[in-house]
Structure formats: structure tokens, C-alpha cells
């Protein structure tokens, strides 16, 4: 057990975390206006419709921005310094993540580099992480 925070699903986020357990990155999409969005919630932030559905995203993303944290959060001591990143999914929405499978240095983490999702088991949950495209382990 790593001691890192383990997400606790709520009813509206449960399908996201269930997807992670299956190795799928689940997003929501509005049936009325077609816009995909993240984080999970029962209303479309673009048009206000509550007619929304879940779908499996491609898992492809690009590196949008990050910092390299030198003061580790509890549970992250062995990782420091580590990048806390925001990635832009191929479908448009952005989310926070860590970047794995590559040294977390300014030289190795280049903005707009191609990434793909991978999942880290943690405390009975599965947490989405991103790694340079082509490096993800088969799930």
C-alpha cells in the first residue's frame, strides 16, 4: 500500500472509476449538443442539457502544462521530484494526471508531446496516468 490518496467514488463519478478498473477512460458527452466533457456530472456544461451519456475515450492526449513538485505530498516521498501535469485529451477535455514511464525532467517533458493513458492500481482502485505514446503496457 503506497499511502497515496485513493479516490472515493460518488454516485455520479462511479462509472468513471468503474471504467478505470476495466482499463477504459470514460468521459461523458451531451446528446443534445454533442460536446464531450470532464469531470463527471449529470449536466452538460456547454448547453445545460441533462441528456448526457458515457463513452470510452481513445486514451490519447497531449501534454498541456505541468510543474515538477519538489515538496512531495504524503505518500509521494519516493517519487519526488515528480510532475503534476494537465493533459488535453484527443476528445478535448483536460484532466490532471502524473506522467509515468519517462523521467520527470524539463528536458523529457515537452509540452504538446503525445501521450496515452495507462492505469495504476492503488488501494483497490485504478488511477489513470499518462505515458509517452507507444509506451503504455497492454492491459
Amino acid at each position, binding site marked *: 500500500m503506497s499511502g497515496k490518496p485513493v*479516490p472515493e467514488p460518488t454516485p455520479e463519478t462511479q462509472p468513471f472509476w468503474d471504467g478505470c478498473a476495466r482499463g477504459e477512460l470514460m468521459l461523458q458527452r451531451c446528446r443534445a449538443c454533442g460536446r464531450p466533457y470532464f469531470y463527471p456530472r449529470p449536466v452538460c456544461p456547454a448547453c445545460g442539457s441533462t441528456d448526457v451519456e458515457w463513452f470510452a475515450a481513445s486514451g490519447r492526449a497531449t501534454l498541456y502544462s505541468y510543474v515538477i513538485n519538489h515538496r512531495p505530498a504524503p505518500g509521494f516521498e519516493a517519487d519526488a521530484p515528480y510532475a503534476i501535469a*494537465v493533459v488535453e485529451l484527443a476528445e478535448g477535455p*483536460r484532466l490532471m494526471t502524473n506522467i509515468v514511464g519517462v523521467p520527470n525532467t524539463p528536458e523529457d517533458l515537452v509540452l504538446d508531446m503525445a501521450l496515452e493513458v495507462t492505469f495504476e492500481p492503488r488501494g483497490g482502485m485504478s488511477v489513470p496516468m499518462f505515458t509517452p505514446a507507444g509506451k503504455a503496457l497492454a492491459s
Partner: protein
Amino acid sequence: MTSRSGVIIAGAAETDAIGRLPDKSTLQLHVEAAVNAVADAGLTLRDIDGLATVSAPGPVQVAHALGITPTYLDGTGVGGTSFLLHVRHAAAAIRAGYARTVLITHGESGRSRVGAAPFPRGGSSIPAQFEAPYGTMGPTTAFTIPVLRYMKEYGLTHEQLAYVAVAQRTWAARNPRAMFRDLITVDDVLASRLVAWPFHLLECCLVTDGGGALVVTSADRAGDFPKPAVHVLGTGEASEAPMISQLADFTESRAFRLAGQAAFAEAGISTADVRHLMIYDAFAHVPIYGLEALGFTAKGDAGAFIADGNTEPGGRLPLNTNGGGLSYTHTGMYGMFAIQEGVRQVRGEAPAQVADADISVVLGNGGMFATAGVLVLGRENR
């Protein structure tokens, strides 16, 4: 032209001391600031009929501690800009007749944590599910994330980012109450400890103890107080996203822009009218985002604008003249201190007084670009 806000700041004061105050609790800091501000207005606590402060310890606790039974309560707690929103809401309440004289208090044992609420951790909130698992540790690890995108899009250099701290120290050097007063160089900033690359320690705000309070009342009483009235000419508030990852564009703050537009429109001013500016500076990039959001520079130009000396003593746009959160003080909710310096400058009583500071603009940040408040303060009612 008369200010549509219809109110003035009649009293303004900070706690006797700011900095490291391990002998004072959060509530004591509220009380001390309140007593000082009411005295500054030449009033007594019995004259106060409205109370506003953030949720912890909250307006009920502060009002009760002071023996006030308010007819108007505001517990708006949307981060460090909350006090700017309290001024805006107090203006509406006073116009509506809900209260005549509103006291707004801030006290925070941010460094010593005496009588302070614990930092929330864990749980199943949206940020706990979607940010905490990635090792965030407060604003230093999240508020800072957008700047790398800005640097790539607009060519801001590490040296220009560092220079924000250098420029503000030139003001702090003139302010005896500032925590850090020794002049620094870009090399000093870049040689300081890395906190969250690209941010070094000197590009991050202080963590201190202290407080401040304001007395807001109707503008028709402008001549009734010992100090010159500071007219609230315009106000604005706005929000964007509760998590840094969900900002629409990492190179700008929508909340800053919208709050600024509202305040400038209400005041009937443009950037050319502004003689003094305060921008909440939790980190070195925030003044850059603020200058651009308020329209003082074109997009992408604010880093060079600061590095060229425009915001320093003698420059054409004095900015963060108390030294800011980077050098003066930062209790955690810095907005109250930004207002206090705006009031001092308009009154003409600031330690590093700017000439002809007849209009001061204060931009407050809440959370991490999550919320914004803007006040336009003026010596005359326009």
C-alpha cells in the same frame, strides 16, 4: 457623475503586527483588526450593524465576539478575494437598507495555525477524486501549473518571471512592515530553492499571521469621519473553475477579466485613469495574468512590462506597493491586505506613497484563478 456603488470605506486598519504571531489566535486577529478599523473610522462597535467575513471562523463567531447583533450577515468564502466581494455585497446591502455600517474582518493564523481550522484532506469531493491522487499539495503544486503553457505560447522567460519578485521587493524595501525588505536580483530568485519547477521559493508568497478590517458605509456620510473618505467607485466579481485543470485557457484568467470589466464599467474609468494598482500575488505569474486581464498590457506583454521597470518606484504604473504577498505578508487570504494598501494610497498615508494616487484598482484572486474580485477606489466621488 456619481459612483453607482454609493458607498465609501470610512475605516481601514490591519492588526497591530503582521508576520509571526504565535501568541494570537485566528479569532483574536479578527477582533484586533475590527477594533482598529472601527477606531480608524472614529466609531464604536455599537455603530456597526452589518458583519462580513469568510466562513471560518465566520460572521456569527466574529459578530458575537464583538458584541454585535447584525441586521446583515455575509459569510461569502470564495478564497482570498472574498473581502473584495464583501465590499461589493455590502454596497448592495447598504443601498437596499439592510445595514448602514458594515464591518468586514479578516484574521488568519496562516503561519502559526493558532485556533485555525485544519486543512481539509481526503474525502470524496471532486478535487479529492481528480486532483489529490496526483500528489498535489496546496496552491504551490496547482496554482503554478498554467505558467508553463503561458511561457510556451507567449515567450515569457524564466528571468522575466523571476523579475516579478525583484520588482516587488523594490517596494517592500520602502515599507517598514514588510517581512522581506532586502533588495534582490534575478540571480537571487533563480538560485533560491526549487519549490515546483519552474517556480523557486522567492517566486512564491510568504505564509504569515495577521489580519485587517474595513468599515463600509454610505457615500452621503463621506465628510463624517476623521480620515478622508475612500469612495468605492466600482466593483466586480466573477468565477471560473474549482480545479486548476478545468480553466478554459491556461494563458489567461477569465474571472480576472470579467470582474475587471464589471468594475471599470461601473466606475466609468479606463486603464488610463488608474494611478495605482494592486494585484493579488500568491505567485509571481499572477500579476502577469492580472495586468493582461485588466487590459494594462496586450496579451503576452506583461512580463516584459514588469521587467522594464514600469511597475517599480518611479514607474508609470505602481503595482503592489506594499511589497505584495511575495514580500509584505500573505496570511493565506491576502485580499484584505491588497485592499488596505489601496485605501492607504488613496488616502495618501502609505509607507511608499505614490504621487497623485487618486484612483487605485485592487484585483483579488480566490482559490487558484477560481474567483476574482475587483474594486475601483477613488479619492473623489466621480
